[in-house]
């Protein structure tokens, strides 16, 4: 339960940062923290007491109780790589916004757009 509570704390931190921080780059960092929180939660769900890493060693037929659940691992592996490409795309947009409006502060951007 403490693990899930920590994941919830990270998620709340990320959402709060996205909502409250004034700078778009910091909002993007907060979004990354939020994504990592979701990944932490899924990987915690895959954990089984007394099991080992989901890689088959030498030996006989594998038993389900001996290995961690590999399905959340797979989902989260692709989630991480997709998160880095979305981060890259967002950074490209931010570079473009900065070169057009010369600020990344949300309030100043809104003032300039008005």
């Amino acid at each position: 339960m403490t693990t899930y509570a920590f994941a919830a704390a990270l998620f709340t931190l990320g959402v709060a940062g996205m909502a409250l921080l004034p700078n778009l780059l910091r909002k993007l960092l907060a979004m990354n923290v939020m994504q990592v929180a979701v990944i932490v939660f899924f990987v915690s769900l895959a954990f089984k007491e007394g099991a080992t890493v989901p890689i088959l060693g030498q030996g006989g037929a594998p038993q389900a109780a001996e290995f961690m659940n590999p399905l959340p691992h797979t989902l989260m592996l692709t989630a991480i790589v997709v998160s880095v490409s979305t981060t890259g795309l967002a950074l490209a947009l931010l570079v473009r916004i900065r070169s057009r409006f010369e600020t990344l502060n949300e309030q100043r951007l809104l003032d300039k757009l008005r």
Partner: protein
Amino acid sequence: MGASAPPGRRDIRVRRLLGAAAFPALFLGLVLGMSELPEFGDPASPASTHVSPRFIEDAAAETGAANMVTAVLADYRGYDTLGETAVIFAAGLGCLVILAGAGARPGLPAAGMSHPFGSVILDAATRILVPVVLLFAVYVLIHGHVSPGGGFQGGVLFGSGLIMMRLVWGPGGEDRAVPAFGPSLRGSLVMACAGILGYVGIGLAAMAFGGAFLDYGFLPLGDDPAHVRELATLGIEAAVFFTVAGTVGVLFDTISIGMRESGVPLPPGDGDPT
């Protein structure tokens, strides 16, 4: 947005405070919801007893990959991984489109990292490190069946090695100090395109031999079906590897230096939007 006058800064501050009060509520709600979940590490939880045992027990025999994550990623869920790879490739293309022509503007360091950080120590260290990093990336790709690793990790490592070369020696290209392979934006783009096309090509080849799209068992690579699927999985991982490595290079090149300095010709009529 309301129809009245735009909110002043004080109103925004009040709204911020009210918003800040919502986050403890969000945290409490999440914790309350999570308290209904099975205990952490419970081997009898539904997630561990319903779908996953079939994959844990049969993956190695069916696909020939000892690493179950690789087996699920590149074989059972191959169609989904094609989608993920396409998302990554599209993100690289998106960066290229967004930053095309975003060049120099007075007052901004538009050139960014286009100048190499050359020094004797950096140069010597890079000469030693880069081959090791690139070789390790290929090892991670090829050994992904039986150890942690695979196309995604190997691709990111390979891209990091290329970025290291780019940082120290400057952008590569036909008329640059670094040979054209890899570090130039054009090379990265070609690599990413080759990767995604190779992925689709493997899927279409399976169709040509009578299976469904990405149904590797039909490829004429041998008699043992598990071995055939293992080889095809390696091909898929290699395709993912090239897509990710190329996209990493594209992302870094477009974000750090922009297209104007990178040696790729700009599309006609695309100037600086000022």
